[in-house]
């Protein structure tokens, strides 16, 4: 879980998060340069809003991937909570607050259900979340066959603009990351999440309550998916049952770009968030690049592929071929 450190050969290894951060900084600088308006609060704000949304989805994915799972229901959970929000997030302040809570409960509940299917039902995560995701999409469509509904605008304004020139989305992300990082690194619960991803058998032998902690990881995934669902509601002021699909795969891509190992036990929420912002910056960059628009999807894909391949370049440097088959 500490990604820094001196490797055995004595050479200093650059922490994975730093690589992601530098990559993001470079991409962002590019973006600002070719953005016709240059750097402005508004440009920052919309960049942050778009980034936060995917970052929340990526953090949702992170918790599940951390315990060596995968959550293909992130998108459907986002859609379902978004739809739920469109039914619940209007009215008086109290009603809206209650609505937010209920939406979080819906998301956490979905995550818990995923966890139960995996832990109790012992179905491999990839298929369990695939099947349950289909269920959640169905419920979302049932609750709102076509887009619509009402979302409280004051709340939306508060969360999608800026405070003294600093985008609220960035502030929110910073708070979330700090709140998550501390217990994750410094409590036994947090370390247990890493432990389970690193070696399930060893965790059992160590006396960690593996089933409970794994369940909690899935529930946390659902919780963060609900935050993404809420934030999408803030951005769109509507409930849309079809909003989900791109988030599932993009959350996985973000997590990988951010240095979270799909094999579990490695990575951080900060990494996941950085991965999300990298992806979003790439697509924003495409926008103002002078590439022919029809060629943009290809370059977006190609850059994604290159970013992923770069992350894996280490494999070519591996000196012992056995390390490739850990």
């Amino acid at each position, binding site marked *: *879980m500490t990604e820094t450190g001196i490797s055995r050969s004595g050479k200093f290894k650059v922490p994975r998060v730093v690589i992601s951060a530098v990559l993001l900084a470079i991409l962002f600088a590019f973006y600002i340069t070719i953005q016709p308006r240059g750097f402005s609060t508004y440009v920052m704000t919309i960049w942050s809003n778009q980034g936060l949304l995917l970052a929340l989805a990526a953090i949702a994915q992170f918790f599940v991937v951390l315990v060596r799972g995968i959550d293909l229901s992130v998108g459907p959970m986002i859609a379902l909570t978004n739809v739920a929000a469109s039914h619940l997030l209007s009215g008086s302040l109290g009603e809206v607050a209650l609505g937010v809570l209920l939406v979080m409960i819906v998301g956490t509940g979905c995550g818990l259900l995923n966890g139960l299917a995996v832990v109790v039902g012992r179905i491999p995560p990839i298929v369990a979340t695939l099947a349950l995701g289909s269920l959640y999409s169905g419920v979302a469509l049932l609750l709102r066959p076509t887009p619509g509904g009402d979302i409280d605008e004051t709340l939306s304004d508060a969360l999608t603009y800026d405070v003294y020139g600093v985008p609220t989305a960035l502030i929110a992300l910073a708070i979330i990351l700090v709140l998550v990082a501390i217990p994750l690194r410094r409590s036994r619960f947090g370390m247990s999440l890493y432990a389970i991803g690193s070696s399930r058998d060893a965790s059992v032998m*160590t006396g960690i309550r593996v089933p409970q902690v794994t369940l909690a990881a899935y529930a946390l995934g659902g919780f963060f998916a609900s935050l993404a669902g809420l934030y999408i509601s803030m951005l769109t002021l509507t409930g849309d049952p079809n909003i989900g699909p791109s988030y599932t795969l993009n959350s996985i891509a973000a997590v990988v770009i951010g240095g979270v190992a799909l094999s579990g036990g490695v990575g951080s929420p900060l990494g996941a968030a950085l991965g999300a912002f990298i992806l979003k910056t790439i697509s924003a960059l495409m926008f103002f690049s002078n590439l022919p628009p029809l060629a943009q999807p290809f370059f977006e894909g190609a850059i994604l592929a290159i970013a992923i391949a770069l992350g894996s370049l280490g494999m070519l440097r591996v000196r012992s071929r056995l390390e490739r088959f850990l």
Partner: protein
Amino acid sequence: MTSLVEFSAVSKTYGGIPALTDVSLTIEAGAVHAILGENGAGKSTLMKLLAGVITPNGGTIKVDGVERHFATPRDATALGIVCMFQELSLMPHLTVRDNLLLGDGGPMLRLIRGAAVKAVRASLDSVGGSHIGLSSLVSELPLADRQLVEIAKAIHRRPRLLILDEATAALTAERVETVFAVIRKLRDEGCAILFISHRMYEIDAVADRVSVFRNGRHVETFAAGTRNRDEMIGLMVGQPLTELFPPRVAGPAMSVAPLLSGRGLSWERGLDAVDFDVRPGEIIGLGGLDGQGQQYLMHAVFGVLKGVQGTLTLDGKPLGGVTPRRAKAPGVDIALVPEDRKTEGLILDMSIGENLSLAGLSRKPYGLTKAAGPADVAVARLTERLEIKLKSLDDPVKVLSGGNQQKVVLAKWLALSPRCLLLMDPTRGIDVRTKAQIYRLLQELAGEGLAIILQSTDYEELIHLCHRIYVFYRGRVVREMSGDEVTPDALIAAALNAHSNTAST
């Protein structure tokens, strides 16, 4: 002495097949209790019952005189019973600090404080791990250090009963001594220790009491020192064993041209200008403290490593660009029995037959049908020659005992009629009887002209089997020994001397 744990008439079956039958045994505080037995005798089963990994089918287990039923390892830990399996309980991607902290089972959500970290450091230091950094990742530690962390982790929980199931199997003599010191200290503080090892000299060194198991039954318990080695082996095997090591056979003359030679072999992470030769019919040993580059040399020769400098010559001709695939190709004919038979040597869920034919598959017309070829005929002969005990070739290989699994690995390679055989700690965790069989086999193979390189953590087997021994330190060969020079003391001294010599420069 007070009895801490009491087994009465405990039985355990796996799918109807008995693993432990009607075992009664008491374990006393303040003593090191060794459990002896062949592979499959039920030693690990006994430990797993105590550790709450499995539950008995019959009989009772009392702790402090109270009958207990453990559902999970947590229940056992709560009573101060701590188990050390072979590397099972370390989380590779976590730091040493976190591995140790997680074991002590505090409240889930409270934040860890500095005092807890200090305690971790102290535990690690007390087992001789002061050179290990708390923030190193376990996956980056050499095997021996991992083992120390494992031990520290067990001790960190302040056990009342510490179980070591072959926990020293990967350690060389010097490190074992460190562990023993810890064990003795714990014992003197009143802790009970259950100790399992297949190395007789370790039992001699550390045990206070010895219990022998055979075929899942408790045969006898006696005070250490009241039986000699042969008697103990007799109890384990059920009949007297003539000899563990076959009589020495002289190696080929130095004038015989080497089959395989290495010159100036270097590899950035652990080999430094190593020269070696091995002749047909010769058994050479790689000794020294563990993790000094012996394993890397094996991997370098078999083409596992990338970027190895220096030259390898086979039959006097240079051999370049080796990969495992090329190493085993006809004309080169090198075979490797890897270090960890469960993840490297075998595919546990596949059948014995499939495992036996795995290396030889490439000898079939590529990609075409699996019809029997010469290698398969050889496999059939070898299962007999190696006396592999199996019910059916279609059973998964994981149902075999450790010794028989190792024989499968050997047979799979011998079927290709290699000219050079690389063996990485081939008898680790294997019982005396099987060891003796393997030793005899190796000597026969050498007699037939096979060149053998044997890396081992067991100094006895290096001494008794090898014609020449290269002693490693920090990736270099620091000493070459042969003939009568090779005695236990000389070998250990060489490894340690190398240590102090190099350390002082």
